[in-house]
């Protein structure tokens, strides 16, 4: 779970949801969730271009129900597609807070996993995985669009296995 926004009660914390999580019905809910992973496009660097390419005709993530959205309020997945600086981190946190739960994070590329080529720069924020609950790591600099699709498939597997960090079990 990300940070809780003040005065907003999360539906995921309600009693019905707590009950459903113990029943097989959750599998059906998860099946629905995994097939509509809408991701937020916020290109942040080289990986952003590959993310755009993954959404277009040559790779076509729409086949999996993975649709790019430009508004955080309509998105389920945030793809950290590049380098997080000290200046950008507050904005990224805000985007993350604006997304409705359940929500997932994918680390795309070396820059977001470890800082990549810029890991020792004065401007970098290191160890993103301590700030965001990251589900899938896609190494590569940048990863090919196929790798991004594979990342989404891994996320789908993780949701079905009930091990994702986006929803609490």
């Amino acid at each position, binding site marked *: 779970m990300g940070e809780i926004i003040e005065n907003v009660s999360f539906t995921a914390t309600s009693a019905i949801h707590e009950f459903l999580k113990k029943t097989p019905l959750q599998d059906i809910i998860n099946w629905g969730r995994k097939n509509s992973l809408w991701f937020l496009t916020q290109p942040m660097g080289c990986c952003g271009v590959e993310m755009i390419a993954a959404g277009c*005709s*040559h*790779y*076509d993530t729409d*086949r999996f129900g993975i649709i790019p959205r430009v508004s955080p309020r309509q998105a389920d997945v945030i793809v950290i597609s590049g380098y997080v600086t000290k200046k950008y981190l507050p904005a990224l946190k805000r985007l993350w807070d604006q997304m409705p739960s359940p929500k997932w994070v994918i680390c795309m590329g*070396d820059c977001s*996993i*470890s800082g*990549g*080529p810029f*890991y020792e720069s004065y401007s970098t924020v290191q160890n993103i*995985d301590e700030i965001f609950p*990251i*589900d*899938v*790591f*896609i*190494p*590569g*600099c940048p*990863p*090919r669009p*196929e*790798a991004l*699709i*594979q*990342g989404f*498939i*891994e996320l789908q*597997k*993780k949701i079905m*296995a009930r*091990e994702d960090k986006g929803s609490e079990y």
Partner: protein
Amino acid sequence: MVVKNFIRAIKTVYTPSVTRLYPEVASDLSDRFRGLQKLDKSKCIGCGICANTCPNNAIKIVKDGRWFPSLDVGHCMFCGLCIDQCPQEALSSTKVYTGELVKWDHHKLLFTPSMLAREVPLKKEGEK
């Protein structure tokens, strides 16, 4: 004319599809594609030139019987400098870039020499 747009769109119905059907069909890669490195343990002398050349310090020489490089793919840029610089040609690039590399946890991104030499599978049996 705006109608022209529609006509053009309808015409594209007859053009062949360009979508690469990953994951059902593996995409065509060029011969020079730089994926995960492969280590030939019989050739490697553990000199450490690859570790010195790496722009990202992603390679470290560790003791695994003899001294061999281990690789943090979370840092590796797949630039190919280590392959170019290896005096024994012990490192080569393969076309592994998706399935085995994408991991659920950060610490699994460390590839030991035996994994680089493909003596053990890159993804353990039943690993999620």
